[in-house]
């Protein structure tokens, strides 16, 4: 660490929907924010991936490449689920969670629709060339589901107050209770649900 370098008060890694908002609020409040953003940025198919021609493209374009991403709602399907991996273990020897997920027709159709919208926006903004990332990603940053909320104990894990159908004094807070992903950041909704769970807990304890 260079002791002469300007110091930041806050280091933000990742400037997505959450990091970007935090950076905005913190800088307005006078904090010095150091923002780190990194990730693979695919090249257009016409550009070589190494050598002089690649370098020339980087030099000419590195400051004028932008990207857009869209989140589409992922519906609940019984075939998409979490369970314990039969073989993989974490460093403590415990089985890790295995994610079984496949984008269905609804998700693929809405993604295709959004891709065309994004392309239209970029071109309207003056983009000379647009290209797609190599693959559509299942977002690992905004995780939802796993303990779905519902009235039916057969098809959900927690009830409408966030308490487990199976273990009634176990409450679950967070977006794991959301049956589907929204298009927007879920913090306000998850906080409202946490409030609701806490109130329910108080109410139940008073009844005793």
């Amino acid at each position, binding site marked *: 660490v260079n002791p002469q*370098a*300007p110091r*930041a008060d806050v280091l933000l890694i990742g400037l997505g929907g959450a990091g970007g908002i935090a950076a905005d609020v913190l800088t307005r409040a006078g904090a010095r924010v150091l923002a*780190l953003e990194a990730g693979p940025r695919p090249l257009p198919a016409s550009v070589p991936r190494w*050598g002089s021609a690649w*370098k*020339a493209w980087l030099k000419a374009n590195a400051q004028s490449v932008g990207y857009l991403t869209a989140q589409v709602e992922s519906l609940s399907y019984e075939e998409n689920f979490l369970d314990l991996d039969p073989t993989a273990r974490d460093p403590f020897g415990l089985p890790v969670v295995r994610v079984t997920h496949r984008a269905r027709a609804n998700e693929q159709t809405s993604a295709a629709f959004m891709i065309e919208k994004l392309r239209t926006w970029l071109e309207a903004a003056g983009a000379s060339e647009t290209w797609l990332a190599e693959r559509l990603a299942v977002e690992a940053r905004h995780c939802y589901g796993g303990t779905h909320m519902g009235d039916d104990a057969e098809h959900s894990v927690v009830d409408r107050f966030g308490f487990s159908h199976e273990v009634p004094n176990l409450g679950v807070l967070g977006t794991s209770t959301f049956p589907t992903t929204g298009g927007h950041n879920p913090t306000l909704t998850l906080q409202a649900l946490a409030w609701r769970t806490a109130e329910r807990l108080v109410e139940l304890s008073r009844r005793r």
Partner: protein
Amino acid sequence: VTAGRLSAEHAAILAALLDRLIPADEHGPGAQEARVARYIERALAAKHREHRDAYFRGLSALQASARASHGAGFEQLDAEAQDTLLAATERAAGSAAFFELVRTHAIEGMFGDPRWGGNHALIGWALLDYPGLRTEWSAREQQLDVAPGPAPRA
């Protein structure tokens, strides 16, 4: 190769390989000037320790194919022959992963923070016109028609 540095032979092959991935040319200095190999050697002794074996096997295989096709070491071939071998390495199922590994590490060494041993004299950032991380931007630097200079470095 479970401990210590790459052998002199492997280091020479790696340097030649990096020279072809990011050559010095009319667009500016390349991997050699940015000391990308130094970054990779340091990383293989630290964070990228688990990739040492892949380097050992990948560089050995590249050398073997250079000797088989040209009767000389990879580092002794001309640029065109090296590029042909590298393109084959990039394509072939058995070596594509090694090629991607080195390419990824070359990008890290070229464009990462110089504190990790590469991007010497900010050569990588200069290529991208990237001024470096900074915590403040003056009002003037935020004008659309003003190109920011490099970040102040003590």
